[in-house]
Structures are given as structure tokens and as C-alpha cells.
């Protein structure tokens, strides 16, 4: 099962790889990374149908914002689930994301406990 993590902070890759190292090792999870909204859309567009089933996206990025990416993904790949990860914990961002069809809204610093719960739910559902 492949998930895509989108964030303009490059160290996110190292962090996620370590946090999900067991899942990746065991082969239940495959991680892909993109460092901008535009790059994320390219990744999704590179495979038809995309193998990615879930996108975790940062909101605040140069160029296309996470909320715009959410809208794009929802219109082009409605079957892919999207959750937001943002340093903005305010209700305005939250509501906007939810209205646009985001599944969950995580705040930075990321609580990997709850993130893992979400990923595990996903793994369960894919079985």
C-alpha cells in the first residue's frame, strides 16, 4: 500500500522513513515523497491508475498550497484519501480542509501515535 507525503521541509522524508521503518521493512507500507504541491500532482499523474491511496499533505508550501492540492486531488483522483498536516491549528484552515473533503487534520508537531492509528486503519481496510 502506497502513501504520499507532501511537505516543503525535506527532513520530513527522513523522519517518516524512521517512524514507519518497521511497516516499510515488512512491506505493508510504501512511502513516496513530494516537496511541493506541483511535484505531488506529477507523482500521482505518473501512474495510471495511481498506486498511491492516501496523501498526507502540508498546507503551507511555496507555490501551490496544501489546500489547493487537496482540491486538485479530489477533482482528479476522487478515490484517493487526503489528510492535512499543518503548523496552522486554527479553525479556519481546519474547516476549509474539511469542506474540501479532507479526511483528517493533523497539527505540527506531528503526533505520530494518532498518525499511526490512521495509517493502521488504512492498512486494515486494504487487507
Amino acid at each position, binding site marked *: 500500500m502506497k502513501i504520499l507525503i507532501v511537505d516543503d*521541509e525535506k*527532513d520530513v522524508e*527522513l*523522519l517518516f522513513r*524512521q*517512524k514507519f521503518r518497521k511497516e516499510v521493512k515488512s512491506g505493508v507500507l510504501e512511502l513516496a515523497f513530494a516537496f511541493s504541491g506541483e511535484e505531488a500532482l506529477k507523482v500521482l499523474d505518473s501512474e495510471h491508475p495511481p498506486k498511491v491511496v492516501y496523501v498526507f499533505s502540508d498546507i*503551507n508550501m*511555496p*507555490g*501551490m*498550497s496544501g*489546500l*489547493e492540492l487537496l482540491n486538485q486531488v479530489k477533482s482528479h483522483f476522487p478515490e484517493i484519501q487526503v489528510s492535512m498536516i499543518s*503548523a*496552522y491549528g486554527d479553525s*479556519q*484552515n481546519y474547516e*476549509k480542509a474539511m469542506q474540501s473533503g479532507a479526511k483528517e487534520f493533523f*497539527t*505540527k*508537531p*506531528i503526533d*505520530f501515535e494518532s498518525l499511526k492509528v490512521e495509517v493502521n486503519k488504512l492498512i486494515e481496510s486494504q487487507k
Partner: protein
Amino acid sequence: MNLGVILLILLFYLRRPMGPIEVSAEWKRIINGGMIAAFVLWAFSNSGIPIISQVALFLNFGLGALIVYLTLRNPELQHRKGMIYAWLPLMGLIVIQEFLELISPSFFNSIEVYHSTATFFAIVWAVVMWINNTKQRKALEQERLKTLQKEREYKVTEALKAQLEKQVQERTKEITQKKNELEKALQELKSAQDQLIHSEKMASLGELTAGIAHEIQNPLNFVNNFSEVSAELIDEAKEELDSGNQEDAKEILEDLKANLQKILHHGKRADSIVKGMLLHSRSNSGQKEKSDINALTDEYLRLSYHGLRAKDKSFTADFKIELDENVEPVEIVPGDIGRVLLNLINNGFYAADEKKKELEKAGQTDFMPTVWVKTQKIQNGVKITVRDNGNGIPDEIKSKIFQPFFTTKPTGKGTGLGLSMSYDIITNGHGGDLKVKSKPGEFTEFEIIIPQTTKS
């Protein structure tokens, strides 16, 4: 001709002023007495009463002699000398005639022809002298009038002078008062300006806070999670060691080392953001210190971008940063330069975003508001360029943008002090230069030049 009448005429004229010359009041009294005496003597000498009229006649001679003597000898009456000379021959002839008629009328009859001729010449003399005297008198009179005129003019001048002095005093008082009022107004303006500058700083700090909050959450995310995952890695490493997998354990330790470096890096990042915020809020210019222009530029670009993002959710923009690695550390007040960068970058984003909104109204949605920030090593210093693809600055406004309180933003959105403060910081604070280039409809580019060695 009668001697009495002549004496009265003489006395009458002696009493009158001649041009500017006037006899004293005392002399006037004496002359008055003389006139009364002359009149009385004249009356008696013509009375025909024997003895008395003769005595009066002789007294009249005496009076005449006295008048002639006094007029010729007394300094106060000498101005009438001419008149005496005019009348003297006639008076002499009258005295001779009357004297002879009294003692020897027959002798007088024998010389009457000569006497009459002499009288005729004496009268001619008197007339000529009189005309001459009149001329002199008129000249004197004129002189007197001139003197009077001058005196009057002098008085007028004095009055004018006094009036002028009064006016000058009043004006001086008015001006002093105005000056005091102006000084007070200036003082008030200065304190208002200080307050505005303070509120400008606070406003930009407000803009910063959202960006700062966001910027701190990101490094914090790494600090927290790399620490957490490192603890997990230590457990894993133990497990690997227990099961004798030395190689795997070593690999995990390498990862751990990398994680600790990441933690340190992001910890420092958070630290510099907080320091930047403190510098920014500092009310007065701080100390100059050798600073990394590239790091500062990068930091403030991010602060600006995230600040705007945090404030306005619909805000979408892109930025490109190009840092010249050859830029050497420069002596600057980091908080001040940061403020300038923040101001210019915010303006750039604002301008580009405005253009985007305009184009969207016209149905054009493919415009990406972008800000380019670039550092460049130049001879003896560094150049920082901030460029946006907004609507640019019309030429007629370009010269005004560095003036205090000039703003094109809607009321309440800008204090109009940002650019003037920036200009002041760069030129006066750092001996550098702040220039603007723009093509209306296409771009605006600010160029900051900071010399390596600042003068102050």
C-alpha cells in the same frame, strides 16, 4: 515828516520778528514802553503849548538817539541795523530842521533849498535801503520757513520712528509667540512620529507573529519527533546487540547520530527565529554585528511568506531565492536589516497578490504571484534584490514612495512609514543605498546595497 512818527515806525519794526530772529519778551516790554513814550512825546510836541512842546521835541530827539544807539550797539537788536541806516539821514535832517526852526528860523529859510534837496536824497536813500532790507528780510524769512519745515519734518520722522519701533516690538512679540507655537507643534509632531514609528514596528511585529508561530512549529516538529524516534532506535539497537547483529546495530547508531544532528539543526533554527523576533521588537536600533546576510535574507523571506499565509488563507504565492555563496559576513544591525527585508518582501507579495486578484476579476486565473529574492556579492559589500511580478509603480509615484506617510494601500492597511523607515535604515543606518526599478504592469524591483565597511 515828523520825527515822532519815524520813531513809532522804528519801534514797531524793532518789536516785530525778522525772519527766524525774534527779540526777547523783555525787549518787547522795553520797546512797548518806548512806543508809548514816543506817542506821548509826539502828541505833546505837536500840541503847540509853549515850552512843553519844545521840551517834548528835545526829549523826542533824546529818544531817537537812544533807539539808534541801542539798535546799533545791542547784540539783540543789531539785526535791525539796516533799518536804522535807512532812516538815519532823514532823522538827522528832521532834527537839524526842527532845531534850526527853533533857534534861528531866518537861517533855516536861507538854507531851506539845500535842506529840501538833502531831504529828497535822504528819502531816496531810505527807500533804496528799505527795498534792500526787505530783500534781506525775505531771505531770512525764507530761511526761517525752511528751518521750520525741517523741524516739522524732523518731528514727523521722529513720530514715524516711534511708531515703527512700536510696530517692530509688536511684530517681534507676535513672531516670538508664533515661534513658540511652532516649536510646540514640532515637538508634538516629533512625539507623534515616534509613536507612529513604534506602531509601525508593532504592526510589522504583528504580521510576523503568525509567521513566527508557524516557523517555530516546523523545527519543533523535527526536534520532538526525531527525539522520540531516536529513543525507539536505541531500543532497536539494544535488541540487535542482544541478538548479536553488530552490523545492524552500528547502522542504527549511524542513524541516531544523523538524528541528533537534525535535532541540533532544527533547535538552532527555532532559536534564531526567536532571536529574530526579539531583535525585531527591540524599540531602538541595536548593535552592529557581523552577520550572515544569506541566512538573514532566507529567514525573513520565510517569515514574510508564512506570516502572510497565516493571515490570509486564500493567499497563494511562490517565491524563489537565489543566494550567492561568496557573500561575506557584513557589519549590520540584524534587526533593522531584517525589518527592511520583511517590509520589502511583504510589499512584494502584497503587490503580486493584488495583481492576481485583479486578473481573477477579469477571468484570468493562471497568474502566479511570485517574489524573487537574490543576494549578490559586489565590490566592498552586498546587494540584495527583492523583485515581484505585481503591477509595478507608476513613474509619477516612484519619487514619492520613500516619503514618510506615503502609501498606496487602503486606509488601515499600511502606516506609510515602512519604506521611509527602510530607506532611513539603509542609508543613514548603514551608509548604503536603496533603489527602486519598476515597469508598470510587469514588475517592481528593490535593490539594497550595504557596504562592507560602513562609515558610522
